[in-house]
């Protein structure tokens, strides 16, 4: 056996691969050889660290030195200076956005400091294509414990006691769900993993699939044992090729070691795991639609009851959980429900992974203990708003969720507090918006998404969301009418209460939440034909500040519709009747004399 004094972890997650980590890795291998270090230093290809905007990320152990945005040209310096001479390359260290100070150690970076990485604990730390690295991190010990020391009922009781709730959005107690599937009569049962991550900007499930696939496999195996199933399906988007590849490797390796297949741990428990690639329709995240899709039918939800626990895949009792939920399970079984229930709020236990995006300085995946406030996530982990603009709102729960305004930033995050604030946990998308965001446009954007993703099965979602979208489009174009807000509200109410599945029942949320907190913006659009954030082009108007204009004629020359007139060296004017609000004049003006209102 060869011992390496150092490990160079190079992220091979989708984000870092996109920013060039494969080239960095190849160069690293070359340079290690050039400096004769190939027997001292090992390259470890890992999954995602969640800090993708800083990629490619390279971490050197044992010190845990965190290099970010590493380019191929930087590799030689890292090898020569750090790996050979032991002097970390300062210019490649992470620099704190607030203090401008260098932070050499992974664990000290603000982005990670406030996090509590349980589900993501292995992501970016182990090689996901090597099952032994997972085993080194106590992998499959929970499965061994469940199969050899616990009855299925005890496993379910443990999960119940942990307080774990579904991480896919609904927040249904996981243990209870398993209980239903266990109690359902049937000779054949299925465990299904929903890895059809579809919220715009969300990628927490992908990170687990790419960075720690065995955690999912182990969690599913434990669930299968608990409910009395011997076969599972992982429904994963075809747009996640790397995740699929890693899963395939992981399943094959687990099979080879007998951790999947027949008579696992000599307990008589058998478990077979299949991967099903989905085409990535948003609605297939709904469990009955997902099941229909696995069966090869049109991916559409059906009326529940019967619930999948009684009548699921191929009509057999089935349990569907999402990736993050399953990935929590081995940790709960290994460390005990008391440990898990010790984290979080009264009704929301453990941690939640969020995908932090938008106008925030640090974007990426953040796993935090339930009960942390939005302010901590956005301003401490996220480092605050880009260009230090004013925070306006944060959209939680993707297109099914709602926005939370500044006055609620100290809201401790849990399932119930978010619902009462008009948002929802969803799968954990956090889109941060600054003062330059138009909330009507935001609502229009999300409704457009759900409207396009509606399966078209039930009337309210199919027809109603379209009519709501038409109204919102009208408003953003300055054609809003008196009564539009009330009509939006009454449509939203009906769509929520009468739609067949969760997609329709939550589709109006972005509209309702923005109406709740930013009604004045709607009114400004409708009554004053004004977009307070200056986003809606149709409502914008351009004018020339007389005292700043020197009459250079640059604006008049670029105007495509000849709306600008004026004599040379004298202030110009814009004819609002002709102006098409393209903004070309404002770009052309070197004197900041043209303003948009």
């Amino acid at each position, binding site marked *: *056996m060869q011992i390496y004094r*150092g490990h160079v972890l190079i992220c091979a997650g989708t984000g870092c691969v996109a920013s060039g980590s494969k080239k960095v890795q190849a160069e690293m291998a070359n340079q290690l050889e050039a400096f004769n270090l190939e027997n001292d230093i090992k390259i470890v290809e890992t999954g995602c660290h969640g800090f993708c905007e800083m990629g490619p990320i390279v971490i050197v152990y*044992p010190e845990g030195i965190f290099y970010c945005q590493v380019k191929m040209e930087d590799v030689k310096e890292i090898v020569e200076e750090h790996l050979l001479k032991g002097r970390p390359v300062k210019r490649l260290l992470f620099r704190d956005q607030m203090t401008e100070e260098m932070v050499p150690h992974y664990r000290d970076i603000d982005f990670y400091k406030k996090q509590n990485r349980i589900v993501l604990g292995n992501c970016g730390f182990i090689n996901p294509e090597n099952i*032994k690295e997972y*085993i*080194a991190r*106590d992998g499959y010990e929970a499965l061994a414990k469940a199969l050899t020391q616990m009855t299925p009922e005890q496993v379910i009781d443990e999960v119940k006691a942990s307080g774990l709730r579904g991480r896919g959005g609904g927040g249904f107690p996981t243990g209870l769900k398993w209980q239903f599937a266990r109690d359902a009569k049937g000779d054949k049962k299925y465990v299904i993993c929903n890895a059809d991550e579809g919220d715009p900007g969300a990628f927490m499930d992908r990170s687990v699939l790419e960075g720690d696939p065995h955690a999912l496999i182990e969690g599913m195996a434990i669930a299968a044992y608990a409910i009395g199933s011997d076969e599972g399906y992982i429904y994963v988007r075809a747009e996640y090729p790397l995740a699929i590849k890693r899963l395939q490797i992981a399943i094959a390796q687990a099979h080879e070691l007998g951790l999947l297949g027949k*008579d696992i*741990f000599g307990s008589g428990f058998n478990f077979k795991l299949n991967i099903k690639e989905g085409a990535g329709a948003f609605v297939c995240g709904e469990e009955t639609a997902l099941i229909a899709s696995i069966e090869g039918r049109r991916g559409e939800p059906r009326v529940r009851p019967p619930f999948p626990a009684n009548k699921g895949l191929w009509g057999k009792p089935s349990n569907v959980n999402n990736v993050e939920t399953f990935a929590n399970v081995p940790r709960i079984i290994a460390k005990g429900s008391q440990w898990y229930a010790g984290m979080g709020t009264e009704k929301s236990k453990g941690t939640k992974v969020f995908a932090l995006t938008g106008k925030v300085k640090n974007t990426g995946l953040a796993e935090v203990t339930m009960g942390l406030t939005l302010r901590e996530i956005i301003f401490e982990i996220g480092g605050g708003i880009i260009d230090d603009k004013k925070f306006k709102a944060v959209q939680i729960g993707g297109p099914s969720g709602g926005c939370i305004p500044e006055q609620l930033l100290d809201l401790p995050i849990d399932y119930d507090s978010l619902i009462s604030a008009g948002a929802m946990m969803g799968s954990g998308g956090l889109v941060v918006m600054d003062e330059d965001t138009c909330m009507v446009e935001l609502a229009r954007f999300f409704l457009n998404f759900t409207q396009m993703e509606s399966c078209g099965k039930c009337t309210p979602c199919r027809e109603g969301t379209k009519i709501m979208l038409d109204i919102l489009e009208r408003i953003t174009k300055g054609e809003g009418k008196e009564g539009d807000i009330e009509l939006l509200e009454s449509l939203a109410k009906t769509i929520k209460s009468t739609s067949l599945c969760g997609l329709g029942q939550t589709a109006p949320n972005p509209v309702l939440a923005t109406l709740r907190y930013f009604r004045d913006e709607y009114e400004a659009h409708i009554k004053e034909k004004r977009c307070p954030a200056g986003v809606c082009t149709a409502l914008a108007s351009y004018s020339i500040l007389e005292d700043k204009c020197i009459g250079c004629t640059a604006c008049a020359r670029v105007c495509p519709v000849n709306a600008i007139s004026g004599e040379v060296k004298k202030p110009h004017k814009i004819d609002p009747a002709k102006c098409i609000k393209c903004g070309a004049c404002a770009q052309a003006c070197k004197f900041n004399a043209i303003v948009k209102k």
Partner: protein
Amino acid sequence: MAIKTAEDLKKIKEVALDEATARINDGTQIMVGMGTCGIAAGARDVMTAIMEEVGKRNLKIAITWTGCIGMCEKEVLVDVLRPGEKRITYGNVTPQIVPRIITEHVINGNIVEEYVVGKLD
């Protein structure tokens, strides 16, 4: 090999942990000065000896290296840091005395006083 018992899993874990000691370790660190001065004084041989010794004894400790830390005349310098204890710096280390440092100090906690050149909290 197929795993049939929790014991089988443990055996695989043992090997896996050895391979991953740079990342997963008991917190004990041995640090070798690998500045120009250190390398000139034979730090690479010392490093090789440490790695061999650690490998032989299956220790879960981290081996790191650092640049010049001053005291060039006392190179090769090796620091040993056990969790919760003082950082001990040994000077003029040769491959020959490496096994003593490992067995007496790293494993058993008895500082090899004769080579110590510094103690830090």
